[in-house]
């Protein structure tokens, strides 16, 4: 009688162990999947916030001669690429400059020609660099490096140039 009771206790103990192991396994699986899903969402958001922000801005300002790739010189005399978007508001000319400075993609909106430093621009999202080239007439090739070092590229064709 005692032996049978001992075997029952052992079985119960083993079942408890199985129960605990299954619980831990499902928790670990769930946590792992959640981490991967969260990482992907974060990466997609970083891409959307950076590159897609620039391309959307370019499209919204797409008028003949209003989107110009440019180079700016920061206070340490380093050159970096930028996209300059021109617009006229009530007869006054303004520009919006998109560029990467001090680890951030920034946007500077001011009256055309104002001597403002790159640090004044509104930080949009963390980024490493932005390179703008024009491989064909009216086609801008953007190479955007995110804060984590991932590189995204995009081409934007300026329809108004046609």
């Amino acid at each position, binding site marked *: 009688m005692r032996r049978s009771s001992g075997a029952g206790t052992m079985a119960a103990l083993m079942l408890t162990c*199985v129960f605990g192991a299954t619980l831990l396994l*499902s928790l670990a699986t769930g946590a792992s999947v959640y981490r991967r899903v969260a990482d992907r969402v974060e*990466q997609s958001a970083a891409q959307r916030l950076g590159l897609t922000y620039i391309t959307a801005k370019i499209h919204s300002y797409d008028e003949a001669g209003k989107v110009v790739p440019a180079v700016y010189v920061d206070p340490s005399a380093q050159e970096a690429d930028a996209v300059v978007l021109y617009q006229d508001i009530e007869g006054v000319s303004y520009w919006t400059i998109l560029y990467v400075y001090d680890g951030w993609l920034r946007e500077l909106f001011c009256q055309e020609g104002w001597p403002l430093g790159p640090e004044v621009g509104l930080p949009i999202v963390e980024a490493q660099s932005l390179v703008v080239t024009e491989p064909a007439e009216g086609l801008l090739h953007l190479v955007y490096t995110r804060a984590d070092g991932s590189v995204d590229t995009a081409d934007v064709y300026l329809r108004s140039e046609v």
Partner: protein
Amino acid sequence: MDERIKPTKSGLFAIELLIAVGVFSLCAAICVGLFVRSEIISQDSADLNQAVTAARSASECFKAAGGDLQRTAELTGGEVSNGVLFLEFDGDWQKLPAGEPGTFELTMTLQTAESDSYSSALLDVKRWTRSETETVGESFLAWEVAALEVVS
């Protein structure tokens, strides 16, 4: 003759625990299935996001090239074979050199020009699954792209 085996306390406890473990295992199996499904959906969503970005860039190049596939290939870094533009990407959506088979493949097939100043192409993005025995391509993005002005 009418002797019945009386269940012991530990035996009852074991049966109760067995049922509990069974129910929990069933729930855990369902949860793990849902986790796997969410993982697949999340991966598909990320791939679709990247595919849209790649397709948008290719479309912009097609427009800039005035509907010329060869010129589009030069701008995008792809290659034209049998009248179809191929762009290959690895699993992380990094562009591969022309001719190298990738996990993702963007193709552009020129449509017949409907007028002298209008050219369009079918853009398709496929995910390739390669095994030792077979290679299966699954299309998950298809667009029709038009270049309004054809470069003669």
